[in-house]
Each structure stands twice: as C-alpha cells, then as structure tokens.
C-alpha cells in the first residue's frame, strides 16, 4: 500500500463527497462501457439536482435512466437522448433541462476540460441552433464557433483493467467517452472489471494514466446490449 493505491473498499467510499447539485461526467456510449455500479450507488444515495454530462442518458430502467426514475437529474448535457421515454416525459413537463451538444464537440469539451484548454474553435454547429449566441470567427476563410470546456465535480467511468495506481485499459469500443470523462472530473472514480498489480500492464498500452484517477473500485457488470444484431454463423 502507498499513496498511489487508488483502490477503495466500497461504493459508498467511491462516491463519498457527491452531494446535491453537483455536476457528474459519465463515460459510456449508449449502454456500452457504463459504470453500472457507480450509477446504482448514486441512485442509492438519493442525491438530487444533478447535472449529468454524458453522450446519452441510458434507457428506461438501465444505465443513467435509473436516475431519472427518482428525479435525481435536473440537467443533461448529451448528444442523443432518444432511447428513453422517462426522459422524454420529464423534458416535456419541464422537470429536466437538456443541453444538446454535438457528439464530437462534447468529446472535445471534456478533453479540453481535462487538458486545461478553456475554449476552442470548431466548425461543428456553425449556422445551426448549436451555434446561436456563440462567437463566430473565420480562420482561413471558414467560419468557426467558440466552444467552452466542460469539467465536473465528479467523473464516473468504466474501464476493463486497471492497476492499483489507476492506470487503465478499456476493452474494444467500451472506451468511447470514458478516457475523456476521466480527465475532466475534479474527483474521478473508476469502476473496472479487473484490478491488477502495478507492473502487470504494459506502459505503452495504458489508455488512461493513473494520474487522472482518484478512486478505483472493482465492479460486476450486466453489460446490457441495446441493439443485438447478428448474422448467420
């Protein structure tokens, strides 16, 4: 044990300090690569008024969708929220606010937040509702809009393997937004399938260096599939 050992003993400890009104960045794309146990713990804690930044907001009854059931979320920053009837109801009734953000801009905003870049220009969204009210500037004759970084009080992410220092590897496309959210949380909590000893992972294979990870917990995952598409074997 030493100061770099990020492993915590319980979900309570993993999310200690998360209170009403905070901003939570969540990794995952659809239901792929989501921190299932951490989401369950947020539900159990009953914290409310959360701003959730995540590409999607889960589905009814799974993923971040479960936090809608108890009305724990007051605002969602996402690129696509179409998989969730409860979300739809709460949006239409004004119980929840949504800030729709292009997927690439959302990813870049989180990366910028973690990288100390407060704002950047992008062509994405120029001339669309996304660009309204944002500064426009031309570079090489092309118009771009200014987008600001996103950071969170907490980031909750899911990795495949991590060593005790938090050096983490994602599996297949379950990587998605996880490494980005991991960099941009004031406190980053990572839930993994396997915790290994430092030295077991090749330094060149690390996707998220441990410096970004504050707390690490081993979870078990249902890994629900949204669109099971197969071909004849």
């Amino acid at each position, binding site marked *: 044990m030493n100061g770099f050992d990020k492993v915590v003993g319980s979900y309570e400890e993993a999310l200690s300090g998360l209170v009403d009104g905070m901003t939570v960045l969540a990794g995952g*794309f*659809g*239901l*792929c*690569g989501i921190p299932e146990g951490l989401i369950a713990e947020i539900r159990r804690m009953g914290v409310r008024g959360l701003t959730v930044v995540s*590409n999607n907001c889960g589905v009814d009854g799974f993923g971040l969708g479960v936090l809608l059931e108890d009305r724990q979320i007051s605002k969602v920053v*996402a*690129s*696509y*929220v*179409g998989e969730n009837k409860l979300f*739809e109801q709460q*949006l*239409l009734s004004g119980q929840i606010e*949504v800030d*729709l953000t*292009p*997927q*690439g*801009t*959302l*990813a*870049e905003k*989180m*990366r910028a937040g973690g990288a100390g870049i407060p704002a950047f220009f*992008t*062509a*994405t*969204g*120029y*001339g*669309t*509702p*996304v660009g309204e009210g944002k500064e426009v500037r031309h570079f090489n004759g092309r118009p771009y809009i200014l987008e600001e970084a996103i950071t969170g009080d907490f980031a909750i992410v899911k990795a*495949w393997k991590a060593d005790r220092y938090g050096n983490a590897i*994602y*599996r*297949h*496309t*379950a*990587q*998605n*937004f*996880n*490494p*980005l959210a991991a960099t941009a949380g004031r406190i980053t909590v990572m839930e993994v399938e396997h915790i290994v000893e430092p030295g077991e992972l090749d330094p060149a294979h690390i*996707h998220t260096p441990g410096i970004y990870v504050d707390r690490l917990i081993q979870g078990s995952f249902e*890994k*629900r*599939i*949204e*669109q*099971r*598409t*197969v*071909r*004849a*074997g």
Partner: protein
Amino acid sequence: MALSREQMARRAALELKDGDYVNLGIGIPTLVANYVPDGIRVMLQSENGLLGMGPFPTEDQVDADMINAGKQTVTAATGAAIFDSAESFAMIRGGHVDVTILGAFEVSVRGDIASWMVPGKLVKGMGGAMDLVAAARNILVIMTHADKSGASKLLDDCTLPLTGAGCIRKVLTDLAYLEIEDGAFHLRERAPGVSVEEIVSRTAGRLVVPAEVPEMRFS
C-alpha cells in the same frame, strides 16, 4: 420509377474509391456497405471509436463491448483500430475521413442540410451528425426527393433547423443524382424511367437542367 432503397445504396456505392475511409449514417447509408463494387475496398469508420468496422457478429461472437455508432453489435475488421471519442472526432473534424454518406430531411441550393430536428416533435439530439457534415470533404446525402406529402426536400432555403451550413455538394434521391454548385442543384443523372419533367416538378429549389441528363447506372 423511383429507386428502391437498395438501388439508392447501389448507386451511392459507386462514389467510393479503393482505399476510402468512409462513415455511413443510419438507414439507407448503412446499406451502401453491401454494394461496394468488386475490386474496391473501403474501411468503415464508426464515430463511437472504431476504424475498420466489420460485419455483424455471429451469435457466438456477440460482445457487448463491441458496438457501432448505431449501438448495434458489430465486429472489427482485419486491420482495425479502436480509440476514444475525442480521437474519433479529431479524425472526422480534421477531414481525414474521405467520404461521409448520410440521410437528411432537407437540403438547400446553398448546401445547407437539415437532418436532426423537426420543431414540435421531440428533439432526440444530433449525435455526431453536425460534426460529420462540418468536417467531411466529400459528403453524399441520400434521401427521398419529396416527403410523404409530396413536398420537395430540395429547397432554396431549408425550413428546418440546420445540421450544417454550406457543406453539402452531392445529393442522391430516389429520382435523381444532383450536385450543388453556385447556388443551384445541377441535375446529373435521372433514375431509370423517371423523366426530367418529374424531377423538375418535384424540385422546389433552383434547378439547372443540362441539355442531356443520362439515366443512372448502377455499376
């Protein structure tokens, strides 16, 4: 006769060159992968973070950690690379994807595209569409020429909120293949059996019709 979905996909596939990195939107664009001509290899980019998308998995290959941007289970092709979403959109935004094929509600003579939002209907989100249209050098829109009520989707100005401004140069509909230049649709090909008159009557935006409009070929 208006093209079938499969015919549209087949015609769209002719836009692909050997060695192209291609992003295909959901719907008809996804079908394009099935009609890539012989001797042409393309690599599919899926914006959730996969370059080199393979076919759907067999039952025993299904893996919840391997999905595409449509959240469907997929496989990785030989020579694939997997990365995070910032890298995926760096690749898109930086203009490294050669061809993007996607659907739309409306396209204008200025190359504006509306594809994500119908006011009054629930807004589900733009996903990666705004990034894709803002970035790709070569975008092909595939859509029906008119909506179900018969109203043209090729307009002088889009009526719906935009996905991107001034970024579309090519449109394939069930009636025609058109290019956008100098503030007009230029009719390049007509679907087999579809008359120029019908295309003219179903195109609301400024349309330039050359003396000769060849019939579309599919190979």
